[in-house]
């Protein structure tokens, strides 16, 4: 317990968390501090490329341990299953209509790559080993939750969507962030240590600093979202107690599922912690876009405020050290 608290305090006072807090505070205080859209996208492309590449290099170093395929399968299954859990929880805790609940469920089944990146950075800083292929698992977990949510909707609401399922699936799988993550992973795998040496000064040294600025931007966006939710009716339901509770409970349940699965897979302590983070986190880049296409009736403000305004900071500040501590106990790292 003491260790967790120290870790949490240490985490809390890292430049990364403080940058996020700065962004959130600035937005809530109505400062006009902001990042241009192009700069935010540029930073996210950099982070995806770097994290994918480093994961691939790590696989080329340590080999696959036969674990990649099993981990991918489990990851896909978790991403497909968690929306049902989330949906049930939402119906129990909140008055959200079916469509909105399904949309939120899709966000929570999928993953937040920035939470994953931050957790990897914390592990690296503490010298804790984690399987490089977890990056590929992260990529694999982006999409299945979307299909589960759509299936849920069509079961409950009837086949309302005129949208062509095949086109949508294709679009989800070829989503820019999935393609870049998987592509960079493969490049890292193929070029290995030697490739890394060539571009290390770009993808490793400045990584944490870029992550700080990106988290600052995330804080600004999250803070603006919370402010808007408070002001207008639009996403107002988000701040209802039941919804807030979901935003904190769901990551804990997800993390528990991830812990069990990671343990069953025989992952390292670091790997288990990362799988917990993936299950605990909620998408706010790929899934929101997919939901706008497939479920336009769902109110986007609800999912986004929950994912980015509640669950993201919760995971960042308390979740990551907690999951790491649990993984350590579980695996005895």
């Amino acid at each position: 317990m003491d260790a967790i608290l120290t870790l949490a305090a240490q985490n809390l006072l890292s430049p990364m968390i403080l940058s996020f807090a700065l962004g959130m505070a600035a937005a809530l205080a109505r400062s006009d501090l902001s990042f241009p859209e192009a700069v935010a996208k540029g930073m996210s492309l950099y982070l995806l490329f770097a994290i994918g590449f480093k994961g691939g290099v790590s696989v080329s170093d340590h080999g696959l341990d036969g674990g990649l395929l099993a981990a991918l399968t489990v990851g896909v299954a978790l991403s497909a299953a968690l929306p049902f859990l989330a949906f049930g929880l939402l119906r129990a805790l909140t008055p959200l209509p079916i469509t909105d609940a399904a949309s939120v469920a899709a966000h929570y089944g999928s993953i937040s790559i920035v939470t994953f990146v931050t957790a990897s950075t914390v592990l690296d800083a503490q010298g804790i080993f984690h399987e490089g292929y977890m990056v590929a698992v992260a990529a694999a977990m982006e999409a299945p939750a979307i299909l589960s949510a759509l299936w849920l909707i069509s079961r409950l609401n009837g086949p309302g969507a005129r949208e062509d399922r095949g086109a949508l699936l294709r679009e989800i799988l070829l989503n820019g962030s999935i393609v870049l993550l998987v592509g960079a992973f493969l490049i890292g795998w193929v070029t290995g240590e030697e490739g890394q040496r060539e571009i290390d000064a770009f993808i490793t040294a400045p990584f944490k600093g870029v992550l700080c600025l990106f988290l600052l931007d995330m804080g600004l966006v999250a803070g603006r979202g919370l402010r808007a939710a408070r002001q207008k009716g639009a996403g107002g339901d988000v701040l209802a107690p039941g919804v807030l509770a979901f935003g904190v409970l769901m990551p804990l349940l997800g993390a528990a599922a991830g812990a069990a699965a990671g343990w069953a897979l025989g992952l390292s302590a670091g790997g288990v912690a990362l799988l917990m983070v993936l299950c605990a986190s909620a998408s706010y880049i790929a899934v929101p876009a997919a939901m706008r296409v497939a479920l336009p009736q769902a109110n986007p403000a609800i999912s986004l405020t929950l994912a980015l305004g509640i669950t993201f900071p919760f995971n960042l500040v308390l979740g990551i050290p907690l999951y790491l501590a649990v993984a350590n106990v579980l695996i005895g790292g």
Partner: protein
Amino acid sequence: MQMHDAKRVEIMIEAVMERRLTELLEAAEVTGYTILPVSGGSGRSGLWSREGQVSRAGGMIAVVCLIRPERLEKLLETVFEVVDRHIGVVSVSDTKVLRAERF
């Protein structure tokens, strides 16, 4: 200078629908359109801004389409297919164009 009657159709639509809309426009044999970026706005679903955003969700584009008046009806029906279920506004104004052979 010789001018010709035309319609200026302006469609504000969610950015995620861009590809679907333009494919429909091409299927409807619209000869041309221009896409303008949109940086923010407000409507029944609240305020939004593109600042610092990464996801394509939560953004809009403006599609401007100059067409001959006789093609308007078909264009609107096409556009309506997409706009109907999605956030967006469509406006049509009378205008005049140079070089009518282009439209």
